[in-house]
């Protein structure tokens, strides 16, 4: 693997993990806040 291959692997892993973390957190937040609204109605 070339030097740029190692750089691409490091950035790829980090950006993918950050995106998955943000999406999972957003989904948990939206689901929980929607449940509060549903119970209020």
């Amino acid at each position, binding site marked *: 693997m070339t*030097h*740029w291959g*190692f750089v691409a692997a490091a950035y790829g892993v980090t950006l993918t993990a950050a995106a998955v973390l*943000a999406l999972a957190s*957003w989904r948990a*937040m939206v689901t*929980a*806040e929607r449940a*509060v609204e549903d119970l209020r109605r």
Partner: protein
Amino acid sequence: MLHALANPTRFLKIARPLTPILLWLGVALFAVGAWGGLMRTPPDYLQGETVRIMYIHVPTAWLGMGGWSGIAISSIVFLVWRHPLASVAARAIAVPGAVFAALCLVTGSIWGRPTWGTWWQWDGRLTSMLLLFFVYLAYIALARADHDRGGDGRIPAIFGIAGTVLLPIIRYSVTWWNTLHQGQSIGLTGSTIDSAILWPLFWTLAGASLFFAGVVLMRMRALVAAQRVEARLRRLAV
């Protein structure tokens, strides 16, 4: 200010508009830093292009350790003032902190292979960071078990404070032990890294920190909402 924010309704009033601002500003600042680090800086005379891994490795290490500091501070606030939001904050920090600690280990390993000739070395810095990752996992399991059994959150809070013993060990491991990992290169008084290479790091550090804060706010909002649902269901059951 701390006492004012401890009110969940007041917290939500501030957190709702703040969440997207932190997330998107974090993404924007990180993008500027990554662009600078990948396109606008010269390769290192020894490491070549692999030095560009620094712009993501250092922020992940910073937030892996910073996350645990946040857990410890929230735990102290919870134990001293019994603010339930402090316990929520500690639980909300745990998963992103564990993810960033893991990313620190993975990006460090990818950086180590072409630089040191090995993916892993059982030296002070790497081993203590791996221990922090395991301590995060233990905290997540403990906090979940405590919540499921109706605990008052004191045991995870004590664990959160006890875990801080690892932070100075990680910080000074490169000084105390002979290690493959480089010594401290950025301090309060300056840096041994040339400014031509260093500047994008501040952008990625700021961007990753704001992104981390945005994720923590989303997780806190989810936990507060879950508590409200539980409380309402309990009232309906009576």
